[in-house]
């Protein structure tokens, strides 16, 4: 049985070009759920946006918190693309991590955003967005 898998590759080159054009827009990459939810993409939250990479210190802080929560050994490497499941976290751990991040950055993550966070980069981007919209 032939199976086709399409991979979403966020091509950084095109993002960089756009970043140069639009300097201070904070935009977010859409993960339009292909076939996950039947029907049309949600019109409530417009998600067709492109993300500029979150600040390095945000990503580092996130890594720090993740390490602490999951009690990872110090030599375990964490890149922004590492998903939480790669690190052996289940969904309960993910909830704990997000709560820890909420506390650290003094933000409140909404319910529907929580489910989208699967890797460190996404978490950092979301945090940046929330911090920016709060201030």
């Amino acid at each position, binding site marked *: 049985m032939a199976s086709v898998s399409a991979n979403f590759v966020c091509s950084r080159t095109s993002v960089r070009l756009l970043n140069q054009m639009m300097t201070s827009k904070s935009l977010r990459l859409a993960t339009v759920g292909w076939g996950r939810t039947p029907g049309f993409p949600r019109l409530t939250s417009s998600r067709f946006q492109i993300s500029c990479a979150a600040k390095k210190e945000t990503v580092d802080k996130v890594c720090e918190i993740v390490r602490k929560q999951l009690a990872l050994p110090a030599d375990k490497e964490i890149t922004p693309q590492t998903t939480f499941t790669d690190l052996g976290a289940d969904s309960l751990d993910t909830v704990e991590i997000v709560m820890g991040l909420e506390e650290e950055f003094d933000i409140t993550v909404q*319910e529907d955003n929580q489910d989208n966070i699967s890797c460190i980069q996404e978490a950092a981007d979301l945090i940046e967005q929330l911090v920016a919209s709060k201030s």
Partner: protein
Amino acid sequence: MGASTKPRLSGMQLQVLALYRGFLRAARMKSPEERSRIEALVSQEFRRNSSQVDRKNYLYIEYLVRRGKKQLDQLKSPETVGLASLNVEASQAKTS
């Protein structure tokens, strides 16, 4: 599976996670030592259930979620200062 990096969580799983989140949020409002106790207890309970309870046993899971919601409501009330649990192990009497 598909290309999405998000795990495909069912409605029931989302309910359970929302409940867990609710507990963690409620725990924040109590005193720090109580908070760590609550977090430890809740996390232990949820993990135990996740491994022991069959994921197709919808009826039992719904019951647990309902019970959890009631407990959470009680916990949220400012008069409640803590959470405790009692473990009873039923020992099987050997009959020869």
